[in-house]
């Protein structure tokens, strides 16, 4: 894989400008996870996120290498917001670049599934924003 970018940020996620690593890129898949108002039947103002950043970064790096071996994508950008994320704003941004849409779509879906299974990031619905 030519490029892996893994970022944790406490501010709103801003999608980085698209930079194609080669002229062989034919697919760009982007996913954003948005905080919903209704979670478990309750109306929320938002969610509080935390992460064990060194381990999360290491695991994501490994997961992306494994998915690259399986699907052969060219680049991945992963941005996860931490701290308080209000309803309607993105907590997660993933962008995958590949020659074809199939590998890019599968890489993106598998990356999110693997993150949700193993990567030490947590959301909490009961905590209100600290001001």
């Amino acid at each position, binding site marked *: 894989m030519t490029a892996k970018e893994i970022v944790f940020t406490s501010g709103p996620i801003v999608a980085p400008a698209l930079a194609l690593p080669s002229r062989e890129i034919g697919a760009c898949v982007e996913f954003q996870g948005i905080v919903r108002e209704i979670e478990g039947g309750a109306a929320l103002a938002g969610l509080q996120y935390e*992460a064990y950043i060194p381990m*999360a970064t290491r695991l994501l790096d490994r997961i992306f290498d494994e998915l690259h071996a399986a699907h052969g994508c060219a680049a991945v950008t992963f941005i996860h917001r931490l701290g308080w994320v209000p309803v309607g704003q993105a907590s*997660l941004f993933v962008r995958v670049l590949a020659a074809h849409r199939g590998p890019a779509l599968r890489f993106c879906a598998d990356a*999110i599934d693997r993150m949700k*299974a193993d990567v030490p990031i*947590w959301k909490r619905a009961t905590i209100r924003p600290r001001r």
Partner: protein
Amino acid sequence: MQLKILAFAQAQDRLGFRERVVECAPGDSPRAILASLAPGFDGAGVRVAVDCEYHDWDAPVGAASELALIPPVSGG
């Protein structure tokens, strides 16, 4: 040796701390270290990581410097 214990999310709630340093031996397991640190701690559903790698609760920690308690993850 000294080992830093990190507790996240629900594990932090249960233990009442985010970070603590304990004295232990390389042959000690995470289970034994937690039993000594917090005898009433219920680790059900909690995974343990040693130096940023998932680890068996009953395997020695070796020369590790950091042990993290990882409750069920929920990123995204």
